[in-house]
């Protein structure tokens, strides 16, 4: 019965096929007309070089583009890949979606109070700028891959966390709607990982660190560098958590994959940190007023709280970095809870690490496992601190706006 159904559908498709060919030529011919009027078509020729890029969660891997020349005209050379549909369960998608909607709604409300009638031009222009900035290739020496800007911290540093969050959300929405990049159901998770965590959390770290290090050029750039690296790590960790919650099964231990994802993003984060730092320092030297926080950056984190957050952040990262490899060999309190609640697959179990099967002595001796677990620990801590920080910033708001009035 089912087979018959499939057969029928196939014949339908065959019947429709001739139409398809005709339409194709039609599309092509009117395409040419479009290209002539649209002044911006050089994007197809100029941008992208010979590599397409794939990003996972944030970004993942960049592979050399296939050399077929026809690809150049049809396929977007610049192909980001955010979380597609199918990776997360419906429950997780719904939960992340609800969180993302809440966060975006909160940002919308906050920004209306702060920027008033400038909301649309400033935020819209910022998201357009981030979108265009993401298409700029940063070549890596010696490897056929390249990096690009992600921009959460950059947007937040200029416009503040609320507008920054909205700007990145807009970028993600448009990338979904134009490139089919990132899934429809996974949009919430993408927004949560990159826009909310990147802009809110990144901004919390950025401001807190500026309080301590200073608001001069060096302090600002250093804060932006650290904040953007942490925002990438936090997003990667959030993806791991979401993926783990979607696929918690008894026969599956996901710790190794997570360790790989997180350590990979630790490197990606370096690129993001370098780019953000360089852009911020350039803007600082030419238009320092843009970085003074038109959104009232100074009022977001009270100084003592800021110091506290930074000190806490530094301590917890240090602890995570040094203790995580040892802690992971002995189930701790959290893991015990996790086992009881049936999400023990999230826990790291070094015994089945991916690379162990291949027995690469050099890397084993270098302590690859411990390193990656370390990095996972750092990332996880960063994610938690970022979320806590942004939550704190949200909760403190009434007192701050009262202070603004004075």
């Amino acid at each position, binding site marked *: 019965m089912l087979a018959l159904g499939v057969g029928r559908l196939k014949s339908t498709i065959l019947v429709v096929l001739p139409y398809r060919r005709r339409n194709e030529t039609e599309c092509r011919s009117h395409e040419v007309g*479009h290209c002539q*009027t*649209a*002044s*911006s078509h050089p994007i197809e020729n100029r941008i992208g070089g010979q590599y397409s890029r794939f990003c996972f969660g944030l970004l993942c891997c960049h592979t050399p583009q296939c050399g077929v020349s026809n690809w150049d005209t049809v396929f977007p050379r610049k192909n980001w890949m955010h979380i597609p549909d199918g990776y997360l369960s419906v429950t997780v998608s719904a939960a992340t979606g609800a969180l993302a909607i809440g966060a975006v709604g909160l940002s919308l409300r906050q920004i209306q109070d702060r920027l008033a009638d400038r909301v649309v*031009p400033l935020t*819209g222009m910022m998201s357009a700028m981030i979108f265009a900035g993401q298409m700029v290739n940063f070549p890596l020496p010696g490897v056929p891959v390249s990096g690009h800007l992600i921009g959460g911290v950059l947007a937040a540093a200029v416009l503040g966390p609320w507008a920054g969050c909205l700007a990145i959300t807009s970028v993600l929405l448009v990338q979904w709607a134009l490139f089919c990049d990132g899934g429809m159901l996974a949009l919430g998770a993408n927004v949560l990982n990159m826009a909310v965590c990147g802009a809110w959390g990144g901004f919390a770290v950025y401001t807190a660190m500026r309080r301590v290090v200073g608001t001069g050029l060096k302090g600002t750039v250093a804060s932006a560098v650290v904040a953007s690296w942490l925002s990438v790590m936090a997003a990667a960790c959030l993806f791991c958590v979401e993926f783990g919650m979607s696929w918690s099964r008894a026969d599956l231990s996901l710790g190794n994959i997570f360790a790989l994802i997180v350590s990979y993003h630790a490197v990606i984060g370096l690129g993001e940190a370098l780019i953000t730092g360089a852009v911020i320092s350039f803007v600082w030297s030419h238009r320092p007023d843009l970085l003074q926080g038109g959104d009232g950056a100074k009022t977001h984190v009270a100084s003592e709280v800021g110091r506290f957050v930074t000190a806490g952040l530094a301590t917890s990262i240090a602890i995570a970095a040094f203790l995580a490899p040892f802690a992971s060999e002995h189930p701790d309190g959290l893991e015990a809870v996790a086992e009881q609640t049936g999400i023990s697959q999230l826990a790291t179990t070094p015994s089945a690490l991916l690379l162990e099967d291949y027995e690469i002595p050099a890397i084993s001796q270098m302590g690859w496992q411990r390193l990656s677990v370390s990095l996972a620990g750092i990332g996880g801590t960063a994610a938690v601190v970022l979320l806590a920080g942004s939550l704190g910033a949200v909760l403190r708001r009434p007192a701050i706006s009262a202070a603004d009035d004075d």
Partner: protein
Amino acid sequence: MEIIEQSEIDAGPQRPFSDSHMIEMSQLSFRYPGGRAALKDVNLKIEAGEVVGLVGPSGAGKSTLLLHLNGLLPLNLAADADSGVSIGGIPIRKDQLTAIRREVGLLFQDPDDQLFCPIVQDDVAFGPLNLNLPPGEVRQRVTDALAAVDLANYGLRQTAQLSVGERKRVCLAGVLACRPSVLALDEPFSNLDPRARRKLIAILQNFAGTQVIATHDLDLVLELCQRVIVLDDGRVRADGPTRAILSDRELMEQHGLEVPYRLASGRDG
């Protein structure tokens, strides 16, 4: 008198501008924050229906002056402060901005700065929508304005696909859809090819209200304007009939301008 006029403005769309000057500037000075003085002690009176050319070298303060007509400058106008400019007898104050902006339509130099909607008809409808007009009226105004700039079937085009001349005309349609009584145009003819320029001239000649055109295109000033104001270094240097001023070689060269070819060769009179 002023109070009566204000209440009339609030009451409805009738324009109480019959007896006073359309645009009046008295001792207008302006300095950009942390920058140079852009306007120094400008005094101007422009009657309703006049078409005035505003000429002068780059940086003379032409754009700054136009932005004052609409209340976009000074930036933070206090509620009770008077900027020194009045439109149709109404001094530009914070509480009068809506009324002023209804009367003065401003065309910016770069059409990309003004045309911010992806679809043409949305952009043209932006002004009427902000005037809180009923939907039917908005639709009518969009159709009329697009017809007036000769782009009647462009309503659903994407703005990014238009040529520069078409973009400029769509910008003008967006301004005309608000039915202003004053048009303030900043370099309306820059970057246009001769045909697009010719089309824009025809549209402007059909507009019945007051026009202030800031431009470097002196031939065009000769063609469109009855009166010319020469602005240099933030001050009004000359103000008078177009032909008299533009043919004054000494004055023109003193302010970085030159006598238009048609006047210099004497072909045109």
